[in-house]
């Protein structure tokens, strides 16, 4: 079992067993941050309990992952680094898009900005050093690769990944009842769409009439 699966399994066990005193948990790639209330549980006692659960985590079956399908347009201004990335990877633009859109991604944690998924699953062929100089402003919805990772920027923010395309779906909507779309452990697939469909879905998203396919 890989380290991130163990991290998520440990987080699941802590929640499932309702470990006394634990206030909040934050999974990352290879670590789990546990916030606790020391007036309820002491440091040594909690560490003992967590060590036991961490052992169990190696064999824990977690609930089945959700599969989320996100439309993504890999065209023109929506994928400003597409050509440069293809050149760097010695691929044609079409091959790059086919490889990127053909893979299944695992959300191994959410961080940096609200709802931003860090994902693995891109074919090795797409491994690419981050941009030499990060962009100051990456548009919300940008789908990007860097290192072995793929991420989607939920809000406009700085960013050092290569922007391949954009999804019209909102990953963070502070006005929605559930503001965050993706969760750690989700499986994500991109559906390649053309600009016309991107604009159409973007309009439906703005009107609150679009829900991505989640299984």
């Amino acid at each position, binding site marked *: 079992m890989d380290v991130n699966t163990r991290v998520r399994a440990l987080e699941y066990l802590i929640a499932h067993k309702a470990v006394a005193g634990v206030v909040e948990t*934050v999974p990352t790639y*290879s670590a789990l941050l546990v916030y606790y209330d020391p007036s309820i549980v002491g440091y040594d006692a909690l560490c003992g309990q967590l060590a036991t659960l961490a052992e169990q985590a190696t064999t824990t079956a977690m609930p089945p992952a959700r599969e989320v399908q996100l439309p993504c347009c890999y065209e023109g201004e929506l994928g400003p680094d597409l050509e440069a990335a293809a050149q760097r990877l010695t691929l044609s633009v079409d091959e790059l898009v086919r490889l990127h859109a053909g893979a299944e991604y695992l959300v191994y944690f959410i*961080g*940096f*900005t609200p709802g931003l998924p860090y994902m693995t699953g891109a074919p090795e062929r797409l491994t690419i050093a981050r941009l030499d100089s990060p962009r100051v402003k990456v548009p919300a919805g940008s789908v990007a690769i860097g290192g072995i990772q793929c991420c989607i920027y939920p809000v406009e923010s700085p960013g050092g990944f290569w922007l391949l395309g954009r999804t019209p779906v909102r990953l963070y909507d*502070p006005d929605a009842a559930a*503001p965050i779309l993706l969760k750690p452990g989700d499986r994500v697939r991109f559906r390649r769409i053309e600009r016309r469909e991107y604009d159409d879905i973007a309009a439906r998203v703005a009107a609150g009439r679009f829900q991505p396919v989640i299984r």
Partner: protein
Amino acid sequence: MSGPPVEMIRVLDPGPLTTVQDAGRGGQMRYGIPPSGPVDRRSFVLANRLVGNPDGAAALEFTLIGPRLRAEKPCIIAVTGADAPVTVDDAAAPAWTTLTLAAGDVVKIGAARAGVRGYVAVAGGIDVPPVLGSRATYLRGRMGGVQGRALARDDGLPLGAAATATAPRRRAVPLDARPQWGGEPVLRVVLGPQAERFTEDGIAAFLGSSYQLLPQSDRMGTRLNGARITHARGHDIISDGIALGTVQVPGDGQPIVMLVDRQSTGGYTKIATVCSFDIARIGQAKPGQRLRFTAVDVAAAHRLLEESDAALAGVELQEIA
């Protein structure tokens, strides 16, 4: 706080940065959403107690200069935190004290003489809609508070129903329970979780010299400048979680103390964590002010936290005739 909004406060001048904050938004850091809430929790709680609110009721946090507010209906308020002059209809009024406003009264809070963040609590609490269980404003995420933003001129603030139908007694926080800002605060830290990534000299610099607070500090984090904290090997780690008070040290060797609006994860080495009971002291330090760090172990930190919580619970408000 339930029931329809019953009273109104009008914002005549918001000051440079005034937001609605409550006890904070729990359980959302795994989705990248920080807790927010007051930087100086103790002053925030005392403001609420002065107006008869529960400790975590939504109140205003101002920054360096306070707001000018008009009571549209009679209401009860209190100002705490940074030491700033308070006037009601141009007459000096005491901070750390329950104030009774009549409809039309204008309360003005001036520039902080000491400290940075002040609190204005109103009986009933500020009744903006809760988002994910909290009214706290998270500015970068445009979430909570008044439409996810800082207060603006002409905003009307709805109030919740006050906890008691009768006005709370006029009370004051005793002088010896009011904090003193300024000087060179010594912040207690627990070393780790990546202290081993620094050289002995680096740790000695961190614990042995003073650091000056830089103006590029906000609710997300406090940037400091001082003796370089040298890394033993590399300043980048595989990103992991960032706690309240985490002291990150990027490649330039200068510490950044993470506060209530911090990002949930980060990839810089973390030399230490400032104890939660000392967060207010860093949050109330002005740009240019110097700070020092001293290490305590986990057991001592927990004992000090217990003492600090007991001291806050034990503050006896003085009745005023």
